[in-house]
């Protein structure tokens, strides 16, 4: 085992890990926000609007992540839209995960008891305030673990971005192994770091669940 190489190359891994971390964090926040916005047409009473939004979401969910990356980075320029690798990485991550987040949030909202909205209406809530104070928090509590799962998926998918030379964690591992001929050590170390990242997400979900268990009627 060439642990010394990994030790000496820690800065490379740190840069890769840092890039993976911020790409995933930013795209999670953005896709959650956009997913929440997409809920408006997804829950609309207008069937045409709802159908269009649902089609968009399904299309987004049913395209392989790698293929979407290729489309954004290699195919868009042939249409005259050039994007650098960072923008391509963010666009791909956000677009792909927005579709998932929208579907997750929609399902959570659809399962909310109708009485909750009734009570909110009767007490003067409407529009954004209804969503922010009454609906949104309950939907988030209900779907927290599912969002955690999606976040883990997103972290793993982000490894594909090494193919368009985004210097994230997998790219760093690949760089170190090919430069110093230490594939086992390098890829193993990267794997450990991914496990740590996902472990962090699991920990967050677990903390959220502790709060959610106070709130869910199922414990009665």
């Amino acid at each position, binding site marked *: 085992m060439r642990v010394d190489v990994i030790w000496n190359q820690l800065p490379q891994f740190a840069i890769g890990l840092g890039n993976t971390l911020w790409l995933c964090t930013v795209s999670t926040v953005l896709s959650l926000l956009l997913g929440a916005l997409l809920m408006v047409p997804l829950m609309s009473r207008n069937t045409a609007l709802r159908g269009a939004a649902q089609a968009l979401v399904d299309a987004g969910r049913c395209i392989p992540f790698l293929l979407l990356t290729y489309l954004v980075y290699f195919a868009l320029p042939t249409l005259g839209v050039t994007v650098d690798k960072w923008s391509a990485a963010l666009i791909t991550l956000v677009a792909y995960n927005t579709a998932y987040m929208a579907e997750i949030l929609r399902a959570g909202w659809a399962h909310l*008891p109708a009485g909750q909205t009734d*009570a*909110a209406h009767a*007490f*003067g809530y409407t529009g954004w305030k209804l969503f922010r104070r009454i609906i949104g928090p309950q939907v988030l509590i209900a779907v927290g673990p599912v969002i955690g799962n999606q976040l883990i998926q997103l972290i793993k998918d982000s490894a594909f971005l090494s193919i368009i030379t985004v210097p994230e964690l997998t790219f760093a591992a690949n760089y170190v192994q090919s430069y110093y001929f230490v594939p086992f050590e390098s890829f193993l170390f990267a794997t450990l770091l991914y496990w740590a990242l996902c472990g962090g997400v699991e920990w967050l979900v677990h903390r959220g669940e502790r709060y959610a268990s*106070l*709130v869910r009627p199922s414990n*009665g």
Partner: protein
Amino acid sequence: MDETPTPAVELRSLVKRFGAHEVLTDIDLQIMPGETVCILGPSGSGKSTLLRCINWLERPDEGTVLLHGTRVGYHFTNSGSLPMTDRELALLRTRIGMVFQHFNLWPHLTVLQNVIESPVYVLRRPRDEVVAEAERLLEKVGLIDKRDVYPAFLSGGQMQRVAIARALAMRPEVLLFDEPTSALDPELVGEVLAVMRDIAHIGLTMIVVTHEMEFAREAADRIVFLDKGRIIEVATAEAFFAHPATERSRQFLERYR
């Protein structure tokens, strides 16, 4: 001069349909300020729908709802009457309190937070003042020791008492009860009815859809008897229970004796 006071709630020729089925037919009703009115009738007679039409949770297909003379759902302009926007409707609904069969407390908020939520975030009253009033109300319904507990940890009777405190915290002009004890275990009904009797005595206008005949007899000023979407009988509670005027109300009361 017109000497009669304005009714707290007035329904004029109200009609409500679900698809082709007419659930409410030609409902005319006046409820005066301070009155407690119980709406009785067999299941499916349209009682809950009638109640939900008052705060527009169900939109009537025809007719008029007036709250202290203000029309609910429409407002008048120079060019005629226009449907209210969601915001206008929301504002009007804050004047009407509601207690639901299944409580519908907000599970992500504690007992106290449930009670202060709408006065603080919708009515925008000062938080300190609202908390003080909410604590008084929780004291009144006997649940001040549960102020920081989440609804999931309460019994049905406790949840319904919190729901009543939540409605009272809005300082409503009218309080609607939609079968408030129907979802409760029999041994928990009494504690909720006791709180409702207390409120009836302070002179709030109350409209109660219920199957609790004892409560109706003791607490109601008037009874409205509904059958198949029509008002068949309106009478003082005494008169209704002693001498029901119609065959249908007699049959109905038979089953509760």
